[in-house]
């Protein structure tokens, strides 16, 4: 009987050891995998962010997969579960929601998978290893000053906000208002969310124009909405009379500024943010532990006077 038990235990040990070594072997295969999770690939700006992060991670020797959350926090959660289960080493992450995405980052952290946020923030300074973010507030202070100058201190305008659950939306809006609200003869006649979406911005502005046909300007929380707003104004025959201001530095808006259609934008640097995140992840995986929890990247004002210095998503080299 005792012999039987010993044999049984030996067989079990061999089985467990082989299972462990097989698992270790699988991990070794997956050792160099990085996941890039992007809030939506429906916006060219985020495509640039995701592809640049993936490209830099590949240059650093990692196998990379890009996941599209389609602006849906539940989809993002599924991605994180799959990423953790599949044994990825790190996540370069553009969140869907400042609050809703915290639990996903926390889950990854608890599973030993470090997360590096890009462009969009989560409201936590303990869960991600680092958050590389545009300094949206300062960017919109500069944009607000230029807006006031172009409005000559008076007139009516509409503000199109982005996703209300995203901190970028409010940092941009508050930076802009920290300047413009000091000018009592500049009146905001409508403020509405268009979810950072071009088509929605067009529809929203079309509807606002019916009640407010005499506006002088539209301030949009991103470039996709600026293009949608311009389309609505063009359809209403007001494109020459109403100034449009965006934020991002996307290709179609940079081209439109050059063509004199859009007045200005705030140039974010998605490629800088994406490369920095990938390089930080690589350093972390190679043993570095000290990173700034939040690393703001400056935003620069791009207008018709300085457009020659800029190209889509960055500066001319």
């Amino acid at each position, binding site marked *: 009987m005792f012999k039987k038990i010993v044999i049984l235990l030996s067989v079990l040990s061999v089985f467990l050891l082989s299972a462990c070594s097989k698992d270790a072997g699988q991990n070794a295969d997956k050792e160099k995998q990085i996941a890039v999770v992007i809030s939506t690939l429906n916006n060219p700006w985020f495509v640039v962010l995701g592809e640049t992060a993936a490209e830099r991670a590949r240059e650093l020797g990692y196998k990379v997969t890009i996941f599209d959350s389609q602006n849906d926090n539940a989809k993002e959660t599924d991605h994180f579960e799959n990423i953790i289960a599949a044994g990825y080493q790190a996540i370069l992450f553009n969140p869907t929601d400042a609050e809703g995405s915290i639990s996903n980052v926390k889950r990854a952290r608890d599973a030993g998978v470090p997360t590096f946020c890009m462009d969009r923030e989560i409201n936590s300074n303990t869960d991600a290893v680092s958050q590389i973010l545009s300094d949206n507030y300062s960017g919109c202070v500069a944009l607000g000053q230029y807006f006031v100058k172009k409005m000559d201190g008076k007139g009516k305008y509409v503000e199109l906000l982005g996703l209300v659950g995203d901190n970028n939306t*409010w940092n941009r809006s508050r930076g802009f208002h920290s300047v413009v609200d000091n000018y009592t003869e500049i009146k905001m006649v409508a403020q509405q969310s268009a979810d950072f979406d071009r088509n929605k911005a067009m529809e929203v502005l079309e509807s606002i124009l019916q009640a407010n046909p005499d506006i002088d300007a539209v301030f949009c929380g991103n470039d996709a909405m600026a293009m949608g707003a311009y389309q609505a104004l063009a359809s209403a025959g007001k494109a020459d009379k109403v100034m449009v201001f965006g934020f991002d530095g996307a290709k179609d808006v940079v081209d439109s500024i050059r063509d004199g259609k859009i007045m200005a934008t705030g140039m974010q640097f998605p490629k800088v943010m994406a490369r920095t995140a990938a390089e930080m992840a690589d350093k972390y995986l190679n043993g570095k532990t000290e990173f700034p929890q*939040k690393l703001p990247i400056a935003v620069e004002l791009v207008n018709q006077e300085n457009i020659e210095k800029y190209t889509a998503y960055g500066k001319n080299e």
Partner: protein
Amino acid sequence: MVKMNSKIKYIIFLVVGLVILSQSVYIKKLDKMKANAKPDVFDPQVYVQNFWDKQLPSVLDQAVDVNDLLPLFQTDMDKAVSQYAKTLGIASKHAYLIKGEGTVVKIEPSGFYLDTTRDGNPDVLLIALDLFGNAVRDASGLVDVSDFPNSMEFNAISSEINKRVREQVVIPAKSQLQSGQSVSFIGAAEVSQDDPEIDPLGIIPVKIITGSHE
């Protein structure tokens, strides 16, 4: 007898029920609960009051003299940045804590123009109108973005500081300053490394001390 038994049963159930209920419900005074509750919401006014009254005065002696800094902007910008600037993240714009003395040569709604080099031309604009941005917060070196779970809180600090500057520095100065008067000041400025706008240098004042009429 049967009726009696069922009455006893009900009483026992009732007593047991009341005991369970009394153990599961706690009643406390509302004012005590309110007193113990931790504030969840960040209050920029409270934060800035402490910053303005206690923290900022302790770093004002680190301010660089404007007559040392302005020439450096023209001759060696890298040295100006490395020796005197504070930078938020990755940026080509840097914040400086600056002090100086000068004579008021012009007063406009935009602010007070000072001649600090005694050549009759304005070198500095102590800003009175466009009190925006993060110059004071960042130049102080006292506020770290990584300490804030939400960057909106970090940015609200700047708005509140600028409000204090308007109320406690600029408005009193407007009623005191006159052309020809000598002035000493401490303030903060944001200057782009690539495209410095320094003619004159716009400074958000945190302290203005008026002197004699020259």
